[in-house]
């Protein structure tokens, strides 16, 4: 019975009632009333509620409030005369949060007797209003409490005719008329056009984030043809630099980062760059924005993708696009805390994704509604979780067993061509590696040096092992380790001969050893002389069932396991790692064990010959080399004679370290005459070269196999069956409430076209995101109007420094009001009608008189502020433009596009920077590693964001720390040096150099006065540096630095 009611109520909730009743603090009476009315599905039910409002509440309002808050005199813009007006609220937003007294402004004011001011309400009146709010404010239009339905940004776009204006100046566009009309109302007008050099600089910086080249400026100045300006705009719109600049804005909005964030580890996202490149491509191609958004929300649910089948490039792009959903921080791959902590990490990924969509696409702040219904926005607590239910199939945060960690969230989706190329390339690499291996083996057997054999055991003799091997080191009388190794036994720890090989049987946790009974002198007498111990590693496990050895350990100079003997040093343990260099510990085991640096680089795999060589290098020092297949590797360490007492050679038993060896050989090499020595050195060198070549071929093959170019880090539903999404009471993960159906926020929902998620192509997914994408981009939906407004506002912001709405993340009721609401709507409709072409919007804006007008305040004395656009506003370049422009002007910018990020480094001072000498050190900032915890210091000081969620606008601060970076950083000084060199190379005459420098940095000709001052400065500075031969060059560096750090360079105006 109860269940049925719930279902019914849910239907209604979906229609937009802000709070499901069963959650609310609600009197039984009201609950009954509602259930009764809904169960009857009758108009009468609504009438009952209306009666409640009109009978009980409206009379109170009418009698006590409407005098001041009515149609005649709406104080605080609040009108309480009609139900619709009550819903709308006043200048402080909604006055009623249904079911929530504490959050209802109305209640707050009347409770405290603040309102009505002269004669407070009676206790009875208050009680009625209280009960009414707690009951969900019945009687107000359904779904309208907090619905925000008539909020300007939630309305559907309708055609608007630009206002008429008095100004008859030519070049005034339809768009300009909105601005001009507003100015004219103020007795003002658009300012005159800016000088041509300023225009091209403005357009170039705006579209590409770089200043124009001197040639581009001169060409534009020389072009007096019709539409010279428009043609210039087109040139920059077509530049690949455009996508890099504007793609970055989108990446910031989408919360793009190359790391997972959240934890100190801030682990890598090695494949994220493919999303970055997709975005840049999309902007350069002017991909229709509705399609761009659809691909990012549901690229995997759009038709075209069949798991396991080759994809087209277009389909691959759609899969890459879904990375948008997983841009948020996600520490779940590293979580090692308690289950509650791990759950927090999972929810963080889910909530981040939700927040990104709401702020970047919808321009709404949704996150407040995580814990309670939004106080200012028409977003209820339930709305939040209904929306979350759309994303929960990708991020099933509530259920650990369904969760997929970020590193496992990928798909292999090759195009046919990629598949062919991959197979060919992999085959080539593997064949090459195999060939190199064979040739190395051949070369080794032909060139392997042979010494005087001091000891050899191929384990083929008929005698017992105990005849030559023991658990007691030579000279010692204690068995090595506890328990001691049983020789000729298979009870661990044990050693026995098997099939002509030595079987090392471990499986204990204590240290034990097996050693030769024979002792050797490990300190060869003369310089250049050496002693070497080697063995073949046959197997790293004893049977197919057993685990492979964690390490292959062996000893040299073994003499005394007890560690309290009279000989110090020796007992040198070499611990061979399966995949990397071997660690070395002297005087093992015991408290005085001394770990030394690692040696060698090759890991221990079966089928190779391993060992060590000790060479006398003079002055009482001995070099310990790691020897593979008879040849020493790079990475040796130096020992002293005291470290190397006489002793045996043997193997270490510890934990899982069973293995099979053969051919233990100890041999001595005499010091060779100098001539031979060099030939040996050459031979060793040749070995290393061949070994490196083989390693590199193997690494390449492995790299390709693990990270093929079609490995896409995507987001998709974990199954076609959606997980249950619960409302979380007060946002507490431990307090799940009712199950929520998936739907977008009710304020924008379309009652005539319910939100239907009907699975997707192939039945792999729930279809919820596809439904979201359809809803958001359907031109018949109000949501698409909002989407267009949000995007157009951000485009505007990037051109003028501030959006028409100055809070681009929030176009809701609590956002900043638009300065030109009709202009925003007009442009948004133009945007949709153009087929969502962003470049079309650019053209409308850049070709307008508003954009082309001067910024000089001196020429427009009557303009106290800039947001009404009575002149063009001057604003500082963002961090990336500053860095990129400096590189561009100095002639150093590397314009390589796409691919994995250029890694950041942290220097000794803790500065985060790009190593300029490394490949890519001079590429555009968008290609540099965007690590959440390590923002490049130079960019950060100029307000580049630390990406926690996303960044939709940046502050533009002016701090002394910026001056320090400009004056003293290596980066700026290096650019100044390169810029000075460039100018000096191009021109021989000082005057021409000054002209070129000004033109390059400022995109304009130098004035006569400036030129004189510049030459004066250069002379003075050069005199100071004299008699240094480079005095003039040094003066030029200082000169160029001044240009690069001056306001004219740092500002667009």
């Amino acid at each position: 019975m109860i269940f049925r009611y719930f279902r019914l109520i849910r239907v209604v909730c979906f229609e937009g009632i802000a709070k499901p009743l069963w959650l609310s603090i609600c009197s039984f009476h009201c609950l009954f009333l509602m259930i009764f009315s809904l169960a009857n599905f009758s108009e009468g039910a609504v009438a009952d509620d209306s009666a409640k409002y009109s009978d009980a509440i409206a009379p109170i309002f009418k009698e006590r409030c409407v005098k001041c808050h009515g149609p005649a005199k709406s104080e605080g813009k609040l009108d309480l005369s009609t139900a619709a007006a009550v819903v709308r609220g006043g200048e402080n937003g909604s006055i009623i949060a249904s079911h929530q007294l504490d959050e209802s402004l109305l209640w707050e004011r009347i409770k405290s007797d603040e309102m009505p001011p002269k004669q407070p309400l009676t206790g009875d009146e208050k009680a009625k209003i209280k009960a009414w709010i707690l009951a969900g404010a019945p009687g107000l239009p359904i779904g309208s409490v907090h619905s925000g339905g008539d909020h300007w940004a939630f309305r559907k776009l309708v055609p608007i005719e630009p206002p008429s204006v008095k100004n008859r100046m030519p070049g005034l566009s339809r768009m300009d008329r909105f601005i001009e009309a507003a100015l004219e109302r103020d007795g003002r007008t658009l300012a005159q056009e800016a000088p041509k050099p300023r225009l091209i600089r403005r357009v170039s910086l705006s579209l590409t984030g770089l200043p124009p080249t001197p040639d581009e400026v001169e060409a534009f100045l020389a072009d007096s043809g019709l539409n010279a300006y428009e043609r210039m705009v087109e040139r920059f719109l077509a530049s690949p630099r455009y996508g890099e600049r504007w793609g970055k804005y989108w990446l910031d909005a989408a919360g793009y980062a190359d790391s997972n964030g959240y934890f100190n580890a801030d682990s890598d996202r090695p494949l994220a760059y493919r999303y970055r490149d997709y975005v840049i491509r999309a902007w350069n191609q002017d991909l229709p924005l509705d399609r761009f958004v659809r691909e990012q929300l549901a690229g995997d649910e759009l038709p075209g993708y069949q798991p396991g089948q080759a994809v087209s490039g277009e389909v691959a792009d759609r899969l890459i696009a879904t990375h948008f959903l997983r841009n948020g921080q996600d520490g779940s791959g590293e979580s090692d805390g308690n289950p509650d902590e791990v759950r927090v990490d999972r929810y963080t990924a889910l909530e981040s994704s939700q927040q990104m969509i709401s702020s970047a696409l919808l321009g709404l702040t949704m996150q407040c509604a995580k814990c309670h219904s939004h106080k200012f926005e028409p977003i209820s607590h339930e709305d939040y979780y209904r929306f979350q239910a759309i994303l929960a199939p990708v991020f099933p945060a509530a259920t650990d067993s369904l969760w997929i960690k970020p590193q496992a969230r990928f798909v292999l989706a090759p195009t046919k061509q990629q598949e062919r190329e991959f197979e060919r390339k992999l085959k080539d690499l593997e064949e090459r590696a195999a060939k190199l291996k064979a040739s190395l083996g051949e070369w080794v057997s032909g060139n392997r040096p042979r010494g005087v054999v001091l000891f050899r055991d191929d384990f083929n003799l008929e005698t017992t092992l105990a005849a030559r091997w023991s658990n007691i080191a030579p000279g010692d009388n204690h068995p090595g380790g506890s328990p001691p190794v049983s020789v000729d036994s298979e009870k661990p720890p044990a050693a026995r001969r098997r099939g002509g090989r030595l079987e090392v049987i471990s499986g204990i946790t204590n240290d034990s050893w097996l050693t030769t009974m024979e002792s050797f002198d490990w300190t060869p007498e003369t310089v250049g002389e050496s002693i070497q111990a080697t063995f073949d590693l046959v197997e790293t496990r004893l049977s197919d069932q057993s685990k492979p050895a964690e390490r292959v350990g062996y000893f040299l100079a073994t003499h005394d396991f007890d560690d309290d003997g009279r000989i110090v040093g020796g007992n040198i343990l070499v611990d061979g790692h399966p995949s990397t260099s071997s660690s070395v510990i002297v005087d093992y085991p015991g408290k005085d064990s001394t770990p030394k640096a690692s040696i060698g680089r090759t890991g221990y795999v079966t089928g190779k010959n391993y060992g060590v060589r000790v060479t006398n290098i003079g002055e009482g020092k001995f070099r310990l080399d790691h020897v593979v297949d008879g040849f020493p590797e790079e990475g040796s360490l130096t020992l002293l004679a005291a470290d190397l007492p006489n002793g045996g050679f043997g193997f270490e038993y510890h934990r899982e370290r069973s293995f099979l060896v053969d051919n233990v050989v100890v041999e001595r090499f005499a010091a060779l005459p100098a001539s031979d020595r060099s030939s040996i050195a050459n031979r060793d060198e040749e070995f290393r070269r061949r070994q490196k070549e083989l390693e590199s071929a193997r690494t390449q093959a492995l790299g390709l196999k693990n990270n093929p170019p079609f490995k896409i880090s995507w987001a998709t539903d974990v199954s076609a069956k959606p997980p249950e999404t619960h409302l979380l009471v007060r946002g507490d993960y431990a307090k799940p409430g009712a199950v929520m159906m998936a739907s977008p926020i009710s304020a924008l929902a379309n009652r005539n076209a319910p939100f239907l998620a009907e699975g997707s192509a192939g039945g792999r997914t729930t279809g919820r995101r596809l439904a979201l994408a359809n809803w958001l981009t359907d031109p018949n939906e109000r949501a698409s109007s909002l989407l267009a407004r949000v995007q157009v506002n951000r485009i505007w912001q990037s051109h003028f420094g501030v959006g028409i709405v100055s809070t681009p993340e929030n176009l809701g009721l609590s956002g900043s009001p638009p300065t030109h609401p009709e202009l925003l709507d007009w442009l948004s409709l133009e945007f949709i009608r153009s087929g969502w072409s962003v470049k079309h919007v650019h053209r409308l804006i850049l070709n307008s008189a508003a954009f082309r007008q001067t910024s000089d305040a001196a020429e427009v004395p009557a303009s106290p502020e800039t947001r009404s656009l009575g002149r063009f506003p001057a604003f500082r370049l963002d961090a990336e433009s500053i860095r990129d422009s400096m590189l561009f002007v100095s002639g150093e910018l590397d314009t390589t596009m796409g691919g994995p990020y250029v890694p950041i480094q942290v220097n000794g001072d803790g500065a985060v920077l790009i190593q300029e000498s490394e490949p890519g050190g001079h590429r555009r900032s968008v290609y540099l590693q965007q690590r959440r915890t390590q923002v490049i210091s130079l960019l950060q000081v100029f307000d580049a964001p630390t990406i926690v969620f996303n960044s939709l606008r940046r502050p533009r601060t002016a701090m002394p720390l910026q001056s320090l970076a400009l004056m003293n950083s290596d980066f700026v000084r290096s650019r100044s040096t390169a810029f000075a060199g460039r100018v000096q190379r191009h021109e021989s005459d000082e005057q021409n150099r000054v002209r070129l420098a000004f033109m390059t940095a400022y995109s304009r000709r130098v004035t006569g006065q400036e030129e004189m001052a510049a030459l004066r400065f250069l002379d003075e500075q050069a005199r100071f540096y004299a008699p240094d031969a480079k005095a003039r060059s040094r003066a030029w560096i200082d000169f160029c630095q001044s240009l690069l750090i001056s306001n004219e360079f740092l500002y667009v105006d």
Partner: protein
Amino acid sequence: MQSSPESYRESVTRRGFLSQYAGSLGGVALAHLLASGESCGVETDAAAGFLKPGGKAKSVICLFQHGGPSQMDLFDPKPALQKYNGQAYPGGKLEVHFDKQKGNVLGSPFKFARHGGSGMELCELLPHTAGIVDDITMIRSMKTESVDHESALRLIHTGRFLAGMPVWGSWVVYGLGTENANLPAYVVLTDPGGLPVDGERNWSSGWLPAVYQGTPFRSGNTPVLDLKTPADLPDRARNVQLKWLQELNQGHLKRHPGNTELEARLKNFETAARMQMAVPELLDFARETASTRELYGLDNPATAEYGRRCLLARRLVENGVRFVQIYMKGQPWDTHSNNAQSLKGLCATTDGPSAALVKDLKQRGLLDSTIVMWTGEFGRLPISQGTDGRDHNRHAFSMWIAGGGFKGGYTHGSTDDFGYESVKDVVTVHDLHATLLHTLGIDHRKLAVQHDGRGTSLTDAEVTGAKLVPALLA
């Protein structure tokens, strides 16, 4: 509660989010950035809303103890734990996170004794703190909302579970500005061994402009980046170069008369040049006396590094820095295993210098105007994790706070018999924030900035219920 989002927006704009959205307004905030102590008063007009008379404190030093120091082993003696040591937990509910490692009651192995005129009880590992008990308020009834390190760190630093909010230091600096334009207003002293858990987030200004974020002073000779003039540029040449730069900038400014942001940039070069002098002087301890060095334990390897940062914190505050935070590497107090042994080592490092800082500030007459806080992000459980560790506990932790108008020799609140939950005079992290701001002369309900469509504050009292705790104040 704010009366109107509109009026908030207005006041915030006037206060000036620097130059961010309206170029011509930049100067207001820059005045505040560059301002000397008295010209901070210029701001009072816009800021009048949240400043209130009576705040004794001018600056804050927070000695942050990452990981959750164990209250029942350090500050909050619980005989019941001894009594039931090794037995099943006899108390009621218990929020345990590692079920498989859930152990029995774990008594503290350390002895507690009363100290000072106030008779405050402290454990034997804190002999130096014992010497300052009459200058500190001990709060035994702290409470937070998360057992997850990162989110609990965010709660105590920003008042929010969610990431991305401004930290307390940013709020204080936003509210009060700086008194020394040659130094950053908010300085963070990290461990040379590495960052604390959650790294820079602990001093991030969130959505407040970057100027309000903590400036980490790196250990060693380059506390602030780019502090040294390039080697190939002698001072005299630099001066001539800057003069030439000013000439260029003045020329540009002619096009934009009255643009205070551009003007401020001109000034900033002078300020930056002064910083190049002022910062290295701060780090030069040569004039500190031998007894000061000894007080902070600079010659003892166990205390030298933490002590150096405590002494530097005093010097920063002396020079008008508003907010200083000291961090250790990682999260040393996170004693999931080997609790007792770890505490010995940690106390040997922190006890002496922390107490030294309070003593030193007092003898210099700075304690009245400087708040010193010693706290972690949460507490630990009365039962063992494994055999000898303690797991996280959000229901109770202890902290101490000294100076700036807080009571001396006062112990506030209490936990249940086992130290599991704060039960009497509970102080939430939000209450702590409210009280902290109060002592600095700021009304926590009014220091708000328009964000996410609402007046957002550090305490967000409507949601968190943050309230002033007058009992803590002298």
